[in-house]
């Protein structure tokens, strides 16, 4: 596994990996037992930002820690985020039929695949609580809409690129909508405001379209 350490100011390091799979493994390994003074890990598609408190740990010590953490430590991690969550979905999204056509499968097959694979939150982007979901068993690459919608409702279940996602709040958006859920994804008053926090395992469950 390659890890390139890039500078990101005097209170953070940007660690670059070759693939999202490596980011996921390294994130698990780093999150398992961070030293005192490491305040936050922010994963993205190819990188993890390691934020520190320079008063509690020198940047050089954090760099040494990042270089030495064994990646396989990740397989032993079990935190709150590693607990799975099941999201019931009414598969009646506006783009469902068109997306199935784009992927050359039936809508039934698309729904069956989406609701049978195990997803995992790789990172959060775009908006608070908007988790980018990946799955080893998800074969599809879905192009974004040419023109983003100005208004996507909260709970819209969507696809873009190799990712799945659920809109946590009403917002503009260019992902293709395949369904919707009533599950609350974002609650700023909760101790865990984002349901889809990085590392979380996710399954979707088809419910009758209403």
């Amino acid at each position: 596994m390659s890890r390139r350490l890039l500078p990101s100011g005097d209170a953070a390091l940007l660690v670059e990996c070759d693939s999202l799979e490596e980011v996921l493994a390294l994130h698990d390994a780093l999150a398992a037992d961070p030293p005192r003074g490491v305040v936050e890990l922010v994963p993205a598609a190819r990188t993890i930002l390691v934020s520190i408190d320079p008063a509690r740990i020198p940047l050089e010590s954090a760099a040494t820690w990042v270089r030495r953490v064994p990646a396989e430590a990740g397989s032993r991690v079990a935190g709150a985020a590693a607990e799975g969550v099941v999201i019931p979905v009414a598969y009646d999204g506006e783009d469902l039929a068109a997306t199935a056509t784009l992927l050359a499968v039936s809508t039934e097959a698309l729904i069956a695949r989406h609701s049978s694979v195990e997803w995992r939150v790789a990172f959060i982007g775009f908006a608070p609580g908007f988790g980018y979901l990946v799955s080893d068993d998800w074969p599809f690459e879905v192009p974004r809409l040419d023109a983003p919608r100005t208004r996507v409702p909260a709970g819209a279940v969507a696809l873009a690129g190799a990712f799945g996602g659920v809109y946590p709040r009403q917002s503009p958006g260019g992902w293709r909508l395949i369904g919707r859920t009533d599950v609350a994804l974002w609650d700023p008053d909760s101790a865990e405001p984002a349901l889809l926090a990085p590392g979380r395992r996710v399954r979707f469950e088809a419910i009758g379209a209403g």
Partner: protein
Amino acid sequence: MTRLHVEQPGAAALVEDLGRPGLAHLGVATSGALDRGALALANRLVGNPDGAAGLELVLGGFRARFEGEAWFAVTGAWGPVSLDGHPVPPYASARARDGAVLEIGTAVRGIRYVLAVRGGIAATAVLGSRSRDTLAGLGPEPVVAGQDLAIGAEPAASVPVVDQDVAFPPPAGAVTLALLAGPRADWFTDAAGAALFESPWRLSEQADRIGARLVGPVLERRRTGELASEATVPGSMQVAGDGQPTILLADRPVTGGYPVIAIVAPGSLDAVAQLRPGQEVRFRHA
């Protein structure tokens, strides 16, 4: 309970404290006062803890009436401040009687005033902070004309006695900011790296709490192609496709897809908050 009745918010009046650190992995930026030093100073002048919520006022044009007696202080930008028509010295604490009208005129130096009231603005906290995040839409809504802001309970500390002569206004001329190395400096040509430090830059009109876009020579890229979005920090200087840099600030998106050439040192960020459109900016190595 003491309240501040806002008659005129001016260009923008936002409740801000020191923000929400440590939530970037959930997609939440730090937010908080753009000029953090000004907020801490205003709070100290009235005996508040550094992180009490105050008002961030862009450019001025603010008028409010105190309902109940209160100590207050105005820091950050420099301009005419008066209480019932009598001038109030900058960066100093003053006491308002019940019914007194505070007026904050157009800033002549800097652009963001901070108003602290003893007891702090008692808005509802979201994710542990009373800061308005203008991009994510978190925290107290922007203050509007006619709104009553509740003031919190008296803090334990007394109002300190300070020497008023120690106050300095934000600079009117060129401002020099310290830069740290950025993660994608190697995506740019050597000439771009040199131009960053040798050329004069100007703050564009596109400057807000999310980012401050600068105008200057085009920073040419050595490496083209797409960058997968990656986490940024406050002060990250990203360069868009047109070669112009933007300094990402408190309400920035927590990840960005433009390469970050350099990072404005934390000690220089408060100065960015006080830049006026058109003002000259220069960079030096931190």
